[in-house]
């Protein structure tokens, strides 16, 4: 479940519903990244999606993530699709969710951890 996601975890398999899709930003190496807010009954979290997949995802889509991982980006816990994993749309609309707690809210603990591991 979303609430069980912690930084550094890998091989994550989750099912969630997409609440919002953010704007596209371009990365230095020419890719497009989009941040989407997704949720299940335990809470919500942000996921970063690259290129085509990002353009295809719509709010309301129910998606299964396989082999995902989580890490902290700019102080916020974020989900990603890992190598060998993917995002599959398995339905739409018919999933109950809770928007709170939002596990991607900036977390001072995570920021501290990051600075510690860098220092």
């Amino acid at each position, binding site marked *: 479940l979303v609430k069980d996601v912690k930084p550094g975890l890998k091989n994550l398999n989750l099912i969630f519903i997409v*609440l919002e899709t953010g704007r596209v930003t371009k990365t230095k190496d020419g890719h497009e990244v989009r941040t989407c807010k997704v949720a299940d009954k335990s809470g919500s979290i942000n996921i970063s999606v690259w290129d085509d997949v990002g353009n295809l995802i719509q*709010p*309301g889509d129910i998606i299964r993530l396989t082999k995902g991982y989580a890490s902290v980006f700019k102080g916020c816990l974020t989900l990603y699709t890992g190598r060998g994993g993917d995002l599959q749309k398995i339905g739409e*609309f*018919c999933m*109950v969710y809770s928007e709170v707690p939002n596990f991607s809210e900036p977390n001072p603990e995570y920021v501290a951890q990051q600075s510690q591991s860098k220092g």
Partner: protein
Amino acid sequence: QCYRDLALVSRDGMNIVLNKINHILMEKYLKLQDTCRTQLMWLLRELVKSGVLGADGVCMTFMKQIAGGDVTAKNIWLAENVLEILTEQREWVLKSSLLIAMAVYTYLRLIVDHHGTAQLQGLRQKEVEFCISLLRERFMDCFMIGRDLVRLLQNVARIPEFELLWKDIIHNPQVLSAQFTGVLQLLQSRTSRKFLACRLTPDMETKLLFMTSRVRFGQQKRYQDWFQRQYLSTPDSQSLRCDLIRYICGVVHPSNEVLSSDILPRWAIIGWLLTTCTSNVAASNAKLALFYDWLFFNPEKDSIMNI
């Protein structure tokens, strides 16, 4: 060729085939590619021409896929093609009272959407002729629809052919059928759920039922936005609100358990449908739709859950 083989081999009156077709139509229609849809339509025509028992059921399932308030090419294609089969195979249609009633309910409702372009006007004219002929030839089969027939007829009353029909309904009901005593008789008859439901596509039903059974009050905003974006975002689509409201009043009857929980109540959904309407005409039709059962409530025959 394949069809002929299939018909020869079948031992169950094509029952399995029919069930499979209905299943595909109900569950997967939205995902089907155009060529597949064309094939299915062809198959339906063959089934009807062969007089296969149960083809009327497939016909009704197909009609259910025609979305109200939707004038995109694919939806219009569907409306046109089903109508063509029904018109061509009129003799066959006349054998099934239920099919007559469902077809009239469907196309009377769709007439409202079909205006503006030459193509739509053309379609409307065919639909008008189709409905009028069934109403005049088999009025008592159409009577089966109940009070919503009056509601639908009111919405098309300005069309000349219907204006004439209304004159007969009001002043000369016996012309239509010896058993028809007048509008009041029709208004006192409750409309069965199957008619109220037939004007919602399976996907619309799934989503509305989900909202009224699983979503908690206070949590509905995103679901409403998504539903609205998919089905209620164009000016043409406002007419759908009436169908949705009739469905919620007449088909969605939550159990006591759900009623006493914090699940999204029906009045909240209806409030949303009424307040987000962007057309005055559609809004007033929708409000009438809400009160329809209340206006003619008969404790012996009607369900309090409708009001």
